[in-house]
């Protein structure tokens, strides 16, 4: 089956090789920033460069124990697969795995309300060991 070019739901969400279940949301972000230059009588930037990137990721889960097991400062890889809307996780169907290498847990707040499922969201920043290679990568199944 060819890729539907639509994606629905996350599966095989792991951190430090431990599976996180009950996942309701995942995000990956290259965290790019631009540095514009203008001077003299300029009214628009005359130079814009991508001077820094600060990749991030997050996962929201009903498995609060799994989230609470990832305290701030923990370092490992955060991995999640985004399913193709029609092809699911079949190979070559458009599903892809995102990996945030060297993902450092930033925070893991938990919240719960009366007669609602409690949820927790873990947020990650990432390091690059050479300062140049992007810690965020993707891979087609």
């Amino acid at each position, binding site marked *: 089956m060819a890729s539907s070019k639509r994606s629905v739901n996350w599966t095989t969400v792991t951190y430090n090789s431990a599976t996180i279940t009950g996942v309701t949301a995942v995000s990956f972000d*290259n965290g790019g920033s631009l540095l514009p230059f203008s001077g003299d009588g300029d009214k628009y930037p005359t130079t814009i460069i991508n001077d820094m990137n600060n990749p991030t990721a997050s996962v929201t889960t009903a498995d609060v124990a799994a989230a609470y097991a990832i305290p701030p400062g923990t370092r490992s890889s955060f991995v999640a697969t985004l399913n193709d809307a029609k092809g699911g996780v079949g190979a*070559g169907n458009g599903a892809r*795995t995102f*990996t945030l*290498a060297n993902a450092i847990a930033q925070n893991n707040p938990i919240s719960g309300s009366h007669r609602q499922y409690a949820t927790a969201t873990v947020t990650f920043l990432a390091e690059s*060991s*050479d300062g140049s*290679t992007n810690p965020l990568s993707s*891979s087609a199944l």
Partner: protein
Amino acid sequence: MSDETPDSDRKPDAVRIPSVYKGKGHGEDLDLACKADFAPVLGSKRVDRSNEDGWHFVTPFPRNGQTVYFPKWHDRAGADRYEWVDRGDGVHYGYLVDGAAEAVGFGPPN
């Protein structure tokens, strides 16, 4: 970069492709194109792709800490970990240089 393959029988360890690379027959899905075009080249079932500064870095999946340059802690910090060989169409095959295989992560191997 070199025009000579280090060893014609050796599989590359990574591939660098230009940002405009379209692949063969996978529309706009660059991940599928990279898998189809480079997994056989790298001898892996899947490949990992990351956006770099104007190009893409493609390695076997999972990447396991592979980086373009030697890491900050290493004596050769900032030097290329790969010898890049031009395939002739803007795609470069990368071969790990001596000492690069162990130079991953945030500190020397124990």
